[in-house]
């Protein structure tokens, strides 16, 4: 299906819950509507987005918002869709879709680890790539590197070669 047809189906099934950006083939969803839209994406017989290819967090650095971009694909129908959900940096929460697509389980943990977005309803939300006692979320644009970690200097010591 083309993007315009996908949009038509979504207009009927969840009207008013999303905004479409037609030139980028993207829909934008608010966090509070995300779970409803996600269930439709998976269950609707015309859409059947059975595969979540990728879930990536982002921080564009030009606003006080964080976001995630989900890329869905339907193995049956062969169409894809990008969904963007943005949430304020102060209290970033997005409902978890880990129980709908199991791919999201580890990907959401990764986004939590690196961006600090809390996924509500995630079965086991904890850091995945960094140690459990790491402070801060490194991929945020305003992240300030700590001086030491367990007594080990983090900043590169360039005194001997620069």
């Amino acid at each position, binding site marked *: 299906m083309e993007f315009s047809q996908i949009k038509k189906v979504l207009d009927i099934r969840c009207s008013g819950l999303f905004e479409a950006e037609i030139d*980028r083939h993207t829909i934008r969803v608010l966090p509070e509507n995300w779970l409803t839209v996600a269930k439709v994406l998976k269950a609707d017989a015309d859409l059947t987005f*059975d*595969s*979540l*290819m*990728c879930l*990536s*967090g*982002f*921080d*564009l*650095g030009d606003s006080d918002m964080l976001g995630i*971009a989900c*890329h869905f694909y339907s*193995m049956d129908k*062969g169409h894809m869709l*990008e969904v963007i959900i943005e949430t304020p940096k102060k209290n970033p929460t997005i409902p978890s879709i880990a129980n709908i*697509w*199991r*791919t999201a*389980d*580890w990907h959401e943990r990764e986004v939590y680890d*690196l961006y600090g977005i809390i996924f509500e309803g995630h079965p086991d939300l904890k*850091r*995945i*790539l*960094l*140690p459990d006692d790491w402070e801060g979320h*490194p*991929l945020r644009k305003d992240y300030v590197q700590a001086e030491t970690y367990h007594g080990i200097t983090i900043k590169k010591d360039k005194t001997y070669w620069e």
Partner: protein
Amino acid sequence: MNTKTHIDQSLIKTDEMVLNMGPQHPSTHGVLRLKIHTDGEIVRKIEPIIGYLHRCFEKHCENLGYEQIVPFTDRCDYIASMHMNHGYALALERLMGIELPPRVEYIRVIVGELQRIASHLVALGTFGLDIGAITPFTWMIRDRERVLDLFEYLCGARLLYNYIWVGGVSHDLPEKFIRRTKEFLDYFTPQIDEFDQLLTFNKIFIERTADVGILPPDVAVNYGVTGPSLRGSGVNWDLRKNDSYSVYPDLEFDIPVGTGQMGSVGDCWDRYYVRMLEIRESIRIINQALKAIPAGDVHAAIPKKVRPPKGSVYSRFETARGELGYYIISDGKNIPVRLKMRSPAFCNLSVISEIAEGWMISDIIAILGSLDIVLGEIDR
């Protein structure tokens, strides 16, 4: 004397025991730690703990020019670096709208398929090694070495190539490369039959792998499992066919899928055998590409400055392990705002807690080996 032992059954504890495997363990293929909850010999739950090889790839990318990122992608999946280069170049070429000369596309396909052979040989060899077959490993590594020799002749590096650049490749094929590749294929094709005799249809190997660790297709899709591990479950899914790129539409090849020949569809043996058959398909592809390769300048389409327009792209690529995705957000400058790598082995590993449940501890080794993970790209 009374030989009967008197044990009060109520005093024997029968709790689950947590067993720690790794991070330093020969069969975890790197630094993976598995927390295994066991009930006697039976596995009840597995918690993979990753991150021991985390090298801040995505954070580094936000401080580097697009051209400088290519060597970093090499180091993510060090067993199949060519695929990582190619997937990255493909994403940027899609974002920038670069048309490539046909010669570049053919070179990329040839080296990509050679890399697939080399990577699958490591996967199959170490899989055998994990469950006790030592000879096949040495044979397969011996033949992989010949592919690495070809790559060394091509670009000077044996593992981390930095060969495929945005808009082209770093060097044209050396003079005798095509002849040497043909010689290699002539030598290598009969070797596959020997691998089959030695390992694939070996009774002991089949006993250890058939009907073990069955991965149903719907679970595989839901967990985002891709590549040979997904095809082992009988799903005919390969991005080279289903979302084709480069010159793959012009080439003839089949997608092998698991059929449950030795046990059930989606068992460890199927995942193994799909890789073996893929090696044969790769040879077919290389033979066709070597015949069809046109002349041309491989540097013709390389841009002076890699500055993609404002926007974003999600591009995917079939590596030896599955679907490699790059999600790039550009603001029009020479460094990316965000670069996310969707690593195939990351998703493939996450399914282990689902399929390993209820099997013996010794089967975990077989299941992990059949998933063919590389920790470098899981941890990034």
